[in-house]
């Protein structure tokens, strides 16, 4: 072959490649994308007016300005529409479960439980000793609610909030109370060892439940102590749950749950908080990816001893109830340090809710095992993984790059929870010491490049959720289900993208005195308002929160997230300074 022939061949090849690239990028890729670039660049609706020293009010594009935020399930009762409450949820869950054999699995047992079994246990607890549990005040739960016992007692307490008049609510406690808490009538602890450690304080309660499979005979002389075995004795499967449906939305403000943090601050969540959060989660799934009875949610919890103020244990409830409502199944699993094939989660898993630290551990395990695999295998996988990363960054989702050590065939979405870092400032509403913007708090959050890699090796979509622990039920923000963009490194180094606000909330950024950020450039401190925000229980905190809201939102219900500095991107997403 002559020199000119070579040049001809090379030129033809080059022209061919250029034309192929032009056709692919201009036409074919656009048709194949999950969602167009235009849609990802317009993820929020903004108000037409803004106050001085504030940005416009931002909302999720699914809740346009002028339309109501997501406030509930929209249940029709004749011509009326109700938001619903926990009773409606549980009633529907039991109804749906009769056609689906959906199950639950807990951290302290390999056995799976059907919903009629769980409902039977709940009924046993509620009817124990002629319904003493129903008539008592708040139920302080110290034992982990990821166990069968803790979970079932929690459910029974939730049912109690709806079915009994003026009854107590579940109260999640990080540890056994050291002083008497008003209206706390029931205490739920994990073992007889913990009972001994109560050291006389068992008299503060009308009922102490020990979640251990023992009889109380010969163990304790206390009359108010009951063991799990007695509570669950002779339970039978109950397939339905009946309750009197209210005719209006009067249940919206009914208390649903108290959560006490390590720093002894209690937040109260209402029925509306729960229902709104459930509805927002369901609403977030795009068309053709909706929740169904085939879904299996695995909640992968940290390995260490879980306390009940652990963010995942509280935030899992809206998701868990939404999945059960669609006839899906649930598994609560404890991570085994991440060094395990498939993270130790059931192969049926379609949705995974976990913490970013657990995924981080799993990533290091995967890179280790990849190094150990044979060269040929590794090379073949590397090529596939590279293709997957390229395609996913273009918006074409593929499972071809899934790691051989991470084969969860039905996994379709991972919900990665991330939390606000200055939570102590936020929940104490310290108005007198508004902190400055400090860098370095969110350095451990995933970059968009890392997320692209993770999507390729897990073969699943990833939704990053930003939580405000102990104050907001459900995420305050989440990235789009289809989000595929890989941002420039200069942005990834400075900011973390948390997507748009939940459909139950709206938000704005405000200028603060100490901050160096420019509000005209849409930078400032985040304020939110909406239907998933809990209210402080302590009078002092309530008063401080009220004053703070007045200072930053003119008494229009805004809650400043003290110390959360970020900016609105031109795509409508919120970016936090790292």
């Amino acid at each position, binding site marked *: 072959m002559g020199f000119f022939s070579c040049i001809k061949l090379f030129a033809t090849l080059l022209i061919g*490649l*250029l034309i*192929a*690239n032009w056709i*692919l*990028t201009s036409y074919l*890729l656009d048709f194949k994308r999950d969602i167009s*670039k*235009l849609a990802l*660049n*317009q*993820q*929020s*609706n*903004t*108000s*037409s*007016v*803004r*106050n*001085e020293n504030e*940005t*416009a009010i*931002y909302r999720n*594009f699914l809740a346009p*300005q*002028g339309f109501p935020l997501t406030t509930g399930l929209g249940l029709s009762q004749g011509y009326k529409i109700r938001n619903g409450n926990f009773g409606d949820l549980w009633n529907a869950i039991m109804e749906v479960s009769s056609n689906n054999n959906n199950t639950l699995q807990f951290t302290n047992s390999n056995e799976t439980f059907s919903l009629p079994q769980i409902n039977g246990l709940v009924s046993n607890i509620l009817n124990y000793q002629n319904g003493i549990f129903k008539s008592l005040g708040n139920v302080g739960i110290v034992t982990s609610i990821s166990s069968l016992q803790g979970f079932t007692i929690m459910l029974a307490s939730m049912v109690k909030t709806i079915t009994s008049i003026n009854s107590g609510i579940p109260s999640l406690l990080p540890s056994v109370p050291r002083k008497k808490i008003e209206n706390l009538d029931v205490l739920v602890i994990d073992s007889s060892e913990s009972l001994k450690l109560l050291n006389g304080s068992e008299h503060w309660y009308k009922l102490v439940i020990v979640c251990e499979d023992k009889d109380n005979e010969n163990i304790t002389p206390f009359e108010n102590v009951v063991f799990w075995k007695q509570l669950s004795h002779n339970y039978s499967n109950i397939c339905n749950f009946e309750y009197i449906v209210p005719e209006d939305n009067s249940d919206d403000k009914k208390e649903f749950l108290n959560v006490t943090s390590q720093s002894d601050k209690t937040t109260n969540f209402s029925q509306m908080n729960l229902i709104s959060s459930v509805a927002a989660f369901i609403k977030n799934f795009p068309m053709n990816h909706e929740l169904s009875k085939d879904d299996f949610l695995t909640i992968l919890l940290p390995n260490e001893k879980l306390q009940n103020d652990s963010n995942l244990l509280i935030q899992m409830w809206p998701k868990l109830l939404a999945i059960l409502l669609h006839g899906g199944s649930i598994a609560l699993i404890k991570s085994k340090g991440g060094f395990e094939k498939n993270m130790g989660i059931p192969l049926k898993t379609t949705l995974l809710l976990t913490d970013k630290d657990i995924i981080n551990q799993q990533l290091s395990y995967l890179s280790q095992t990849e190094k150990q695999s044979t060269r040929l295998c590794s090379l073949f996988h590397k090529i596939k993984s*590279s*293709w997957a*990363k*390229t395609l*996913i*960054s*273009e918006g074409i989702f593929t499972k071809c790059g899934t790691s051989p050590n991470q084969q969860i065939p039905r996994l379709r979405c991972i919900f990665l929870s991330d939390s606000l870092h200055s939570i102590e400032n936020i929940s104490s509403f310290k108005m007198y010491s508004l902190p400055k913007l400090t860098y370095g708090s969110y350095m451990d959050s995933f970059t968009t*490049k890392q997320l*692209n890699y993770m999507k390729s090796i897990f073969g699943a979509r990833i939704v990053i959720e930003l939580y405000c622990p102990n104050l907001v039920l459900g995420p305050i923000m989440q990235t789009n289900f289809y989000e595929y*963009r*890989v*941002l*420039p490194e*200069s*942005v990834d180094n*400075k*900011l973390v993208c948390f997507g748009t606000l939940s459909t139950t909330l709206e938000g704005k950024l405000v200028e603060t005195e100490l901050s*160096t*950020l*420019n509000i*005209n*450039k*849409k*930078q400032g401190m985040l304020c939110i308002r909406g239907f998933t925000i809990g209210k402080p229980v302590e009078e002092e905190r309530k008063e401080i929160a009220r004053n703070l809201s007045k200072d930053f939102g003119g008494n229009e219900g805004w809650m400043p997230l003290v110390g959360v500095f970020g*900016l*609105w*991107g*031109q*795509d*409508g*997403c919120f*970016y936090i300074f790292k």
Partner: protein
Amino acid sequence: MSFVKNMFFGGVSTSEDPTGLSNNNNDNSSPNGNDSNQGGGMNSNEEPIVAGKFFPRTLYKFNGHDDEKIFISILGKVYDCTQGRQFYGPSGPYANFAGHDASRGLAMNSFEMGCVRDWDQPMDDLSDLTQDQRDQLNDWYEFFQNKYPCIGVLVPEPGVNI
């Protein structure tokens, strides 16, 4: 060549910077240099109005026709009634009130143009209203206060209205 190159040699497609921060150190200006561009994908023409002081002249254009936003003033307060476009927008029953001080019209329950003053006339001091009309106006004021966001106050413009 980016896509074909990435497929052959590895690499990912990097999107544009939605924050504008990559241009300089701490500047969220848009790539086209318009640093006050607001909103998800909005262009500079849709930048939100800053709430504050309005003159009858500056309020006038927010009548749903010259500008799609609809602002109405009652008893010196300006409300954003854009979401009530079917009532206050062009061809709506209360279209005359859009971009104006609607106090007299609401007090007298009249939609006539005579009840609404032009932007270059002195502002209406409502001193001739009867007690009944005042009560009616206060009811409307409460209604607007509860329904629409208050975005500022209406004051006379020196040299034009006073």
